[in-house]
């Protein structure tokens, strides 16, 4: 067997199955992750609101993208309607909070549950159809939900949009970027832990089995219909929570934010990050959120030599995203996560890589 990503480091001994089934392969990698979270916790001290804003975006988009990755990457189905679920979560949270007076911190997970229900209804066709046909069915869901956002005035405020109250916790209003950053960080950590656990337990394995070989999965006792629809439900839960966080961050939700373009962007995130990789999802989201910002900076520099290029900024951003997806599909179809694995494997064996 080839050495590399699978081989254990020297000095690493596992003496129990518990040690062999941890989220992070080594104590070292776990400590690094904890250190990363701690670093993020102190980061508001030295980051500007602009950077925090980007981090918050990565946070709520990352949660929604994880949902899509569970659906597309892990269970092998496809959805072109993820933005609609994201939007549904946003409206639902605002609605639950303002109509029933339920505190925002509870409204967010409740919005997730509500979105789950919608997702499972949309997922019903998945029990019967696959591949491109399913993609079209979810595309229909995207448009139906968009239309619903525009018409259901009681729920979304119609074309005027609806206001989402800020999140308040222990008497603190999470209105500033710094405060809200901690909320999003907590949600990201919790949701990513939940996602990781899901994948390493029974139902997560069932989803992956479904993706790899649905016929033998069925022989192994897995109910295909149930798990296909469940995949949509779980995926929508993450989308709903992500959307709710988005709503209470902006304070205002409008139907125009949740078009098919956003759905495609979510797909781009998980493709660039790596289908079927939890950490890859976060990497891909960061990449997709940062790319336009970096472009903006880059254009700013070039503009010194080529005046007038600022006018094309919007186009350059769009083109960069398209180009990034194409380049990834060609050179790294398994995404940033795979590249990261290769890098780690390289250093594991350095300098004797053979």
């Amino acid at each position, binding site marked *: 067997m080839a050495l590399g990503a699978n081989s254990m480091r020297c000095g690493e001994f596992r003496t129990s199955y518990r040690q062999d089934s941890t989220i992070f392969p080594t104590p070292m990698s776990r400590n690094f992750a904890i250190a990363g979270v701690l670093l993020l916790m102190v980061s508001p001290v030295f980051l500007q609101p602009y950077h925090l804003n980007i981090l918050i975006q990565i946070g709520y988009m990352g949660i929604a993208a994880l949902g899509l990755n569970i659906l597309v990457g892990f269970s092998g189905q496809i959805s072109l309607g993820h933005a609609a679920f994201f939007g549904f979560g946003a409206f639902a949270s605002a609605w639950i909070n303002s109509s029933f007076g339920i505190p925002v911190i509870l409204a967010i997970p409740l919005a997730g549950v509500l979105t789950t229900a919608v997702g499972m209804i949309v997922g019903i066709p998945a029990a019967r159809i696959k591949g491109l046909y399913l993609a079209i069915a979810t595309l229909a869901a995207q448009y139906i939900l968009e239309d619903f956002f525009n018409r259901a005035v009681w729920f979304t405020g119609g074309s005027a949009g609806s206001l989402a109250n800020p999140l308040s916790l222990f008497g603190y209003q999470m209105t500033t970027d710094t405060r809200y950053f901690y909320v999003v960080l907590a949600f990201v950590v919790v949701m990513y832990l939940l*996602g990781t656990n899901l994948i390493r337990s029974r139902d997560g394995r069932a989803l992956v089995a479904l993706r790899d070989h649905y*016929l033998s999965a069925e022989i192994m006792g*897995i109910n295909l219909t149930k798990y296909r629809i469940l995949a949509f439900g779980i995926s929508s839960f993450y989308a709903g929570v992500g959307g709710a966080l988005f709503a209470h961050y902006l304070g205002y939700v409008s139907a125009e934010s949740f078009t098919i373009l956003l759905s495609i962007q979510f797909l781009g995130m998980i493709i660039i990050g790596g289908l079927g990789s939890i950490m890859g999802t976060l990497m891909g989201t960061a990449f997709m959120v940062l790319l336009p910002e970096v472009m903006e900076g880059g254009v700013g520099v070039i503009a010194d030599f080529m005046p007038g290029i600022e006018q094309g900024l919007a186009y350059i951003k769009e083109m960069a995203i398209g180009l990034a997806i194409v380049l990834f599909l060609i050179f790294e179809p398994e995404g940033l996560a795979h590249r990261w694995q290769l890098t780690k494997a390289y250093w594991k064996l350095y300098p004797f890589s053979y």
Partner: protein
Amino acid sequence: MAEGRNDDVILAAEGLELAFGGVKALRDVTMSVSRGQVASIIGPNGAGKTSLLNCISGRYKPQRGRIRFDGRDVSGFKPNKRGALGLGRTFQNLALFNHMTVLDNIMVGRHHLLKNNFITGSVYWFTGAQREELDHRKEVEDIIDFLEITHIRKAKAGTLSYGLRKRVELARAVALKPKLLLLDEPMAGMNHEEKEDMARYILDLNEEWGLTVVMIEHDMGVVMDISHRVTVLDFGEKIAEGSPDDVMGNPRVMEAYLGEDTNAAAGDDNGRGTAAS
């Protein structure tokens, strides 16, 4: 049919008829397997062996006939339900979950025995899901140990060699804790040594683990050596059944296999030029 439960017979297929359009894959096939047996199904290519196995495991729905498994009529059950009742199987063409590790592949076999779900599994540490997973891991490791695939347990199934994949498939089916194991050509494409190993595993599973085995196999040496009972199919019909020795001496079997018109047996002579060994 009366609910007369016969504890000796674990699997009974009665009058199975399966047709794909005009092609009759199975014609009135009846067979039964007793608990603790190793039963083999043989026959030339296209005889309907895999179709029969697919009917038993639920992939195909026969147009007529019933299947009773472990005292229950399972004819209307979907494959997943039959699996959960204790009907494990392997496939002729490998059907592993290629992107999962060997360990995860085998753990999928535990699906119907595990109780944690997407909620309790997600919160892992607080609902006993972790303990449950680890308990099952222990049992799965026994299977891995038995089939001698310890060295590859963390490898992705898709990267393994053919012989090893066959073994992993067997492990996955055994993880289901089946009462009856259906093996579709477990030794196809293996070299002599691998065949011997596989025969040993099947015998051990039968004798030590107490599994009833139904297998399709082309290697006559293996079939004759390890099976208690052999069923012969040809053109969707059962042409012989009995102990290996009986079947070997049966003129219709010889005809089906060698294509000779020895005893001018059948009335239809539409060129049964099938030869297989």
